């Protein structure tokens, strides 16, 4: 189906999130949307999906104007959407979530669970997705949740499929699988709108690329005419340095020491199997690996969110293995959690409050009993400017920020603390290229100030860009610690379980 958005304008108070946007998606076309964090991409898609009502403009399908006042209308018009922030019900199973809204019933009002499971099984087989239909969503890692979202959108036999940053939480393998699926859908004549900050992916996939900046379309191009650099500067309005240039690390004392650590996950399976690491002040240890190989549990154990079954963690010589989360934060550990919406932020709280979430007792922000609201606001203003969080004010609830801007809030909070160790999981998930450049520089600055940094990332690019040493994790074990200059092939093999040959000290 041909989709056309005409003159879409959407305001939030004084903020114009979409300003007279025009967009045409032809049948069988993959149309990529690019733009900075907060440019208005998700807003535009939410308008299309009936989650937001535009202030003006119209939507046409096959040149017929249609009205979409809620997602049901959108689905009825053959529009499917994968949201940037999941819209799954945490306590339902994958199968229940996929069928939600179009439940197969056998004699009404009974749900046909068997049919539901079958549908999900068929869908995951058809698209080569590994989804356990019986798994409860909240128990699934975020990447798996994303696959459920995608299956849900596909299950409605959508003719127009919108994917808002679907690959932000996928592993490279999963991304490749998704790209294949999308190519196949395109061959079937479906129209696809695809949003991503990963320029390489966009160039590989797109038929047309439209760039949005500050709520307005700034231009369209095709992969043939564009390069990652040209796209980046089109988005941000300036030249972007896609690789961090950093001085070689000057490692000092060992600050974080992990000894033979074993950790179990929620199901009682040992997912970290004897990990030993040393991270020195002034260096970045990057942990690479396909998601789900124990990185999440390792980080949770380091930050006190999960008790290790055995082994030892020490920060600056002090044993923190059995400490509470608070005790570990107080020992000077900063933590950027993998799942910002669930762990990193409280969406209903203001930006200013979220920027001091783990510093309630800090004398800068509180007296004996009361919070210093003025200091908290000032801190908010300061960090908002420094980290370029795009928002009307520091009182804005974090939940209304664009995905990337939410991530900036989490990063800003942790980087602004006085740290000995910084542990970040997926520090630039969902950030635009300009912000990634900025965030990488901030991390390196912290390193140069003598912070011991651990970065867990499923982006090989990021691991290579940031790491002074790279540990590859596979099946709960560190396969080896190697130099970031190691070849991609070598990394790929290690991430698939091969031991490294040239182990670094």
């Amino acid at each position, binding site marked *: 189906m041909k989709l056309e958005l005409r003159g879409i304008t959407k305001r939030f108070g004084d903020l114009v999130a979409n300003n007279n946007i*025009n967009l045409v998606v032809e049948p069988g076309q993959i149309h990529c949307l690019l733009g900075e964090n907060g440019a208005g991409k998700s807003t535009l898609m939410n308008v299309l999906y009936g989650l937001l009502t535009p202030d003006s403009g119209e939507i046409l399908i096959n040149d017929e104007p249609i009205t979409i006042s809620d997602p049901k209308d959108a689905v009825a018009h053959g529009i499917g959407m994968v949201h940037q922030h999941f819209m799954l019900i945490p306590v339902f199973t994958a199968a229940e979530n996929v069928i939600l809204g179009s439940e197969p019933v056998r004699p009404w009002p009974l749900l046909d669970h068997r049919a539901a499971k079958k549908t999900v099984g068929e869908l995951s087989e058809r698209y080569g997705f590994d989804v356990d239909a019986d798994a409860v969503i909240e128990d699934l890692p975020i990447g798996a949740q994303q696959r459920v979202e995608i299956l849900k959108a596909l299950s409605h036999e959508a003719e127009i499929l919108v994917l808002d940053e679907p690959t932000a939480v996928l592993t490279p393998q999963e991304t490749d699988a998704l790209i294949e699926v999308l190519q196949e859908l395109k061959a079937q004549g479906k129209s696809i709108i695809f949003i991503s900050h990963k320029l390489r992916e966009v160039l590989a996939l797109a038929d047309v690329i439209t760039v949005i900046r500050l709520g307005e379309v700034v231009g369209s191009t095709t992969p043939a005419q564009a390069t990652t650099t040209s796209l980046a500067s089109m988005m941000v309005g300036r030249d972007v340095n896609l690789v961090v240039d950093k001085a070689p690390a000057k490692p000092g004392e060992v600050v974080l020491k992990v000894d033979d650590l074993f950790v179990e996950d929620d199901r009682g399976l040992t997912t970290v199997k004897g990990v030993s690491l040393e991270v020195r002040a002034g260096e970045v240890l990057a942990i690479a690996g396909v998601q789900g190989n124990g990185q999440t549990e390792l980080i949770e154990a380091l930050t006190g969110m999960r008790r290790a079954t055995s082994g030892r963690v020490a920060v600056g010589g002090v044993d923190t293995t059995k400490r509470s989360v*608070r005790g570990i934060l107080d020992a000077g550990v900063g933590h950027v*959690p993998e799942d910002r919406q669930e762990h990193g932020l*409280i969406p209903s*709280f203001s930006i200013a409050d979220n920027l001091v979430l783990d510093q309630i007792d800090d004398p800068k922000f509180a007296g004996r009993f*009361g*919070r210093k*609201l003025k200091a908290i606001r000032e801190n908010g203003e300061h960090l908002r400017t420094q980290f370029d969080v795009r928002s009307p004010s520091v009182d804005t609830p974090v939940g209304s920020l664009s995905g990337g801007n939410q991530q900036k809030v989490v990063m800003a909070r942790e980087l602004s603390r006085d740290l000995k160790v910084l542990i970040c999981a997926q520090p630039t998930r969902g950030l635009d290229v300009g912000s990634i450049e900025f965030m990488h520089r901030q991390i390196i600055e912290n390193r140069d100030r003598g912070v011991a940094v651990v970065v867990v990332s499923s982006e090989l690019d990021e691991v290579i860009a940031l790491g002074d040493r790279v540990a590859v994790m596979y099946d709960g074990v560190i396969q080896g610690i190697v130099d970031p200059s190691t070849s991609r092939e070598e990394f790929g093999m290690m991430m698939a379980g091969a031991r490294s040959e040239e182990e670094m000290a």
Partner: protein
Amino acid sequence: MTAVTAQRPRQPSRFMAIISKAREANIVVLSVISLLIAGAFGAVLIILTTPSLLTSWESFFSHPGATIASSAKLVWWAYESLFQGAVVSFHDLSTWIGNPTKANLATVLGPLSSTLTYASPLIVAGLGLSVGFRGSLFDIGGQGQVIAGAGAALIVGFSLHTSPLLQVPLEMVVAMLVGALLAGACGALKAYTGAHEVITTMMSSRIILALLPWFLGLGFIARAGFHDGASKTVNPEGQLPLLLGHISPSLTLNLGFPIAIATVFLVQWFFNRSKTGFRIFMVGQSREAARTAGINIKQVTILTLALAGALLGMAGMLELTGIEQFMSTNFGGSYGIDAIAVALVGRNKPWGVFAAAVFFGMMQQGGQIMEATTGISQSLAIVIQAVVAFCIATPFFVCDIFKLRGGERLAALETSAGWA
């Protein structure tokens, strides 16, 4: 890019601007609309339950004007006496202006004094519930804490003969402690075993209610020489002083009211500025994010319920030492339950809770007077109270009917007051 000329919206007139402002859903608009709905609903009830009016509607088509007029007259009379009974009687007011004696002043102040007397413990109890809601905890068994707190205050109240300056604070402290222990124990059960607070507080309340007759029968509690299940009376030193006693001893307004107002300010500060209040709100809004930020969830859960219990215990003490002065098996009426409605109608905002409690007090007081003067059952006041509570607690319903914008925002407030 295709250039599309956007249609310029017509300049709205000032009148339209005002209408549009009024359509922006906020708590004031919502309250006014809720009152109007409740008023209309009440009017229908009055007509339906008054046989003479009902018969007059049978001949509606022959004299429509008279039918409507007679109905309107009765409805107006009912609401007028409801208001006058709750706040001030215009007749008494003009008498007093003509002849400003102390006795006449006492008559003027009577209704408001009774309303605020009734509201005082309810304000504090409502604040207790809203502390719980702030942390997404539902202390549904507040009644038990009200009674337990009052029981503790009673013992201090009748056994000591000290100065009021000592005895009243002492009563308050023990009442709060007992309420806090009772609710805090439910919090501990939740923190350590996961038992849901709705079950534990409700059951603990049942236990307290069951134990009350036994407690009142205890030798040192029971009124000497009587076997009517009533307790001894709080000594004069332990009673909350009357505020308007110098005008007339029949004006029951007592120190409980200023204490309730002070508590509103305190809870306001606690919610908006205190570290602990912030922690409670964090846990209420997102346990996982709070945990990641280093909050001890167990501790905060216990503390939240303990604070809620302390306020409910205090409400019991205010009821005892400000109004009843002794306990019987039906002590405390339904404060613990009404407090839930008050917290929800007040949307968890301390001054909202205050307003809701005063409104409930008005309906309680005014309803009695209305029944006495017009013969319309005071249940009508309870119905109005319930309809208002219903409308404010379901903003989507009202916003939908009246096409108000921004219902989501009001509803968002609501969910923060919900429980998981």
